């Protein structure tokens, strides 16, 4: 089998920005295979979820599934992406913020906005889930979550918002 797996993390991160989709797909796959060792590539992988090439997106998603909580220094960047226009990147940014738990407290206003008005329902749902994971530090999101419950347009969103409110307490 191929022995091209020895590329360093910085080199793979750079390759993820290549203009060649085959090279980007290979980089995403190798980062996925690196498992939790690729945590330094979290942000580029979230951005790669918006790639035009489906292979890049799928490997980026697979990599992010395994990565665990994000480094604290990228919380602000993830918050920006969660509020951004690319649905799959926003979904994964919200997921990672949720994994960060109370360390993502600074993201609460952006996540509350996502719950209230993100165009993509999966992003709204994941934002509600993330607020629940942040817990009591997400107290300022109560109104957005209560509205999501009251609207009841989406059963899953209403359930996740209800669970988040229970986790936030107050």
């Amino acid at each position, binding site marked *: 089998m191929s022995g091209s797996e020895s590329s360093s993390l910085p080199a793979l991160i750079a390759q993820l920005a290549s203009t060649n989709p085959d090279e980007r797909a290979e980089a995403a*796959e190798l980062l996925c295979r690196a498992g939790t060792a690729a945590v330094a590539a979290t942000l580029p992988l979230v951005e790669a979820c918006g790639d035009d090439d489906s292979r890049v997106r799928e490997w980026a998603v697979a990599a992010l599934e395994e990565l665990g909580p994000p480094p604290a220094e990228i919380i602000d960047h993830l918050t920006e992406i969660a509020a951004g226009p690319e649905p799959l990147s926003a979904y994964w940014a919200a*997921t990672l913020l949720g994994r960060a738990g109370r360390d993502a407290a600074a993201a609460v206003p952006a996540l509350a906005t996502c719950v209230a008005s993100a165009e993509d329902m999966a992003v709204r749902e994941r934002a509600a889930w993330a607020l629940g994971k942040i817990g009591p530090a997400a107290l300022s999101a109560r109104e957005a979550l209560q509205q999501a419950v009251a609207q009841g347009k989406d059963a899953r969103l209403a359930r996740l918002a209800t669970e988040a409110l229970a986790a936030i307490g107050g």
Partner: protein
Amino acid sequence: MAKQPDSPPLAAMVPSAPAPPGQSMPGRWLAGVALLLIALGSVGAQAQAPAGPPPLAPAGAPAAKPWDAVLIASFNIQVFGESKIAKPQVVNVLTQVVRNFDVVAIQEVRAKSDGIIPQFVKAINADGSRYHYVIGPRLGRTVSKEQYTFIYDTNRIEVDATSIGTVPNPGDRLHRPPLHTRFRTRINPPQMAFTFWLVDIHTDPDEVPQEIDALADVFSSMLTLRPDEDDVIVLGDLNAGPPQFGRFKKMPNAGWAISNATTNTHRTKTYDNLIFDKTTTREYLGRSGVLDLQSTYGLTLDQALQVSDHNPVWAAFYPCEAQNLPGLQATTGIALAPR
């Protein structure tokens, strides 16, 4: 919508089965007496040179499977799509894995093309095997979708074509609701066949406790779905080991095949399993395991990770319904190997 492609013609019933490798004639005779009516076959086991790239380990003709056990496996083939199917050495390992088993429940088919699984099954059958498949719809809440598929040996297993479907998902509790299909062993007489539901699942790693409980509800529902079927096997990548089995652990009769073994390729986590009701699925022979990709196929960790970040898990079941034959015990040794 879940579907079964055009089915191959059913293989002829086989009047007898070969002695498993290493089994003596007296042993074979005793097994034959115990299973007098069973004719679980291995019609497709003619010696043929495997096509395609050279194998990683000696393959040759497919070795005979145990004739007194049905081997059911689950395998998360991480991001099984265009990139992976284009790697001959990876496909070679994957085909060898599947040929060990009678049915393999696969998770994480992630491809734009509908041709990945047909291409894969063609590679499996390149040695004369006669596998076929059932595939579910693309599932997922984002543009990143996954499909479930069952790949099964038509020499030994049949599918109830009317049984294929995606489990209802009220309240959207499961990110990727399971694919269910009812199978039966090909034995003579057919009314003695072991019939069973397989329920293929890949849970969302970020919502494991909720999804495990939802899956337990699915399991309970499936047990009573048909009055003529009491065997339900939930199998897949649960992203959880038995300590995290939630509502399943409150079911006094729920049992699982993998308890004290890791199932990921890094050998650090127990994610994959087969769950069933111990009192109704008495066909379970108490034999199960994890097929370690590295050690079985002589791969480095990185080579194994090119195949998947999960190892296949499997369990052995008796090919007859338990009520037909008391005192079940497999007589054949089960040794999984490169094929």
